[in-house]
Structures are given as structure tokens and as C-alpha cells.
């Protein structure tokens, strides 16, 4: 099975910043691609998605569970069986994802959600 690509779809420069943070922490630079919806209507964002995903399987990491990033990602995944979508992207889930990309997209998506959720907590004062 070919390794998954992660595509982060976000508002403004959130995706770029997350890719940079993953590279800074792990040294892995070829697992993630960033897309911004800046200046995009639905057609332009769909084109950016097509270019970013390429031919291989992928997980699309979207910033919010609604809005233009999600609608474009969900429409893309609807027509591509080897693409899964995760919302609420955070750094913790991406750090886990880049080391576990030899699984099916749906499995990687579930694992990412678990890793991301575990990172959200209230710390002791």
C-alpha cells in the first residue's frame, strides 16, 4: 500500500503554519501539503484540492467542521473512494499521522481523530 498524503485545507495561513510546525518537530517534509481557501470560490478551491491530492490516496485535514473548506473537501471525497476527510485539524493529530501513513485512508482518519482529541484537555492549574 502506498503511503498516504495528508492535505491540510484551511482558512488563511493556518495550513502553512501547521506544515511548518510538523517539519520543525519531526523533520518530515514530504507527507503534508497545505491549501488555503484565501481568495477562492468553490471552483478554485476544488482545483487546488485536485492538484494537492494528485493520484494517490489521501486524508484531507480541514480546519472547521463546516464552511467552504469542508464543503470542498467533502465534495472531493464523495467522488474519490481513496480519500477520507477529518475536521478540526490540530498539530497533535498531524504529528501522529506523518508516522502512520501505511494504512487505508479511513483507518488513518480514525487514528488522527483519536490522536487529536487526546491532545485537547484542561491542564491542572
Amino acid at each position, binding site marked *: 500500500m502506498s503511503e498516504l498524503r495528508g492535505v491540510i485545507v484551511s*482558512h488563511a495561513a493556518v495550513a502553512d503554519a501547521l506544515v511548518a510546525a510538523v517539519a520543525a518537530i519531526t523533520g518530515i517534509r514530504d507527507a503534508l501539503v497545505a491549501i488555503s481557501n484565501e*481568495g*477562492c*470560490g*468553490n*471552483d*478554485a478551491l476544488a482545483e487546488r484540492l485536485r492538484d494537492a491530492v494528485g493520484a494517490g490516496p489521501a486524508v484531507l485535514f480541514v480546519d*472547521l*467542521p*463546516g*464552511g*467552504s473548506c*469542508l*464543503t470542498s473537501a*467533502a*465534495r472531493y471525497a*464523495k467522488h474519490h473512494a481513496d480519500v477520507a476527510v477529518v475536521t478540526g485539524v490540530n498539530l497533535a493529530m498531524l504529528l501522529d499521522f506523518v508516522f502512520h501513513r501505511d494504512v487505508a485512508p479511513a483507518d488513518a482518519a480514525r487514528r488522527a481523530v483519536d490522536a487529536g482529541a487526546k491532545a485537547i484537555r484542561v491542564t491542572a492549574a
Partner: protein
Amino acid sequence: MSLALYRIDDRLIHGQVVVGWGQPLDVAFIVLVDDEVRESEWEQDLYRMGVPPQIDVIFASVAEAVARLDEWERDRRVGILLVGDLDTAEALVAQSNGIRRFNVGGIHHRAGRSERLRYVYLTDDEASRLKRLAGRGVEITAQDVPSARPIPLGEFT
């Protein structure tokens, strides 16, 4: 209260609408007027995902919107009416007598369009059509978020 905002935005329901406008206006309902979305449960579910549960989302065809416009204008709650394209805006204005303003919130790049504002791209024909709408008594301004200055039609066409 009535419909506080009539907006043309090709992204339809998204962050600027739900949060950017929805929070300061204390919006209780969003009317999405689009014939294609009205026919697709899948698309409707997708758009609902971006809206908190306390805000009602009404999906309407152009014909349904024309029939219910007075009802929404009389609603005590604050609402936003969204269309995704100029065709729908023109149809609503032509078939109803109640629309006096449209906010251009996002018409993005496509082949043949040129940049008029950072978030408004128009062909010359589309610019002319907006002017014709204005000629029918519809005040048209461009404004992506409430904190931005409403830009009169003459400044971007």
C-alpha cells in the same frame, strides 16, 4: 425583526456568514436560496454542518423564496438570505417586490472575470447586470465582513 442581510456569496454558508455576520447580528435563521442545493439532501447536510444548532437553516428554491419572502421579513428573529450567484439574485428581484438591497460578499475568480475587489471578480457583463439591478432600486454594496467599509457599486464596477 426580518432579514438583516441579503448576500451574494458563491461559497454560500461559510465562516464569514455564520460567525462574521451571524455573531454581531445575533442571527437566528439563514435562508439559502439555490435551486440545485434545494434538490440535494446531501448538499443540505453539508451546509448544515457549518451552522450551530441554535440557528435554523432554510433551504429554498427561487420559487419558494419568492412565496415566503414576506413571511421571513415579518419574522421577529434576525435572518440572513443567501444566494450563490447573480442569476439567483436577479430572479429573486424580478419575481418579488420586497428586495431593496444586496450585499456582494464573495464572487470569486473564474475564467473571463477580472478582479474588482479582493473578493469580487466580475466579467463586464456581470458588472452591467449588477448596475441594472441597482437601476431597479436595489442598493448594491460590497462588504465581506461587518467591520469592513461597505463599498458602493460605482467603486467596483
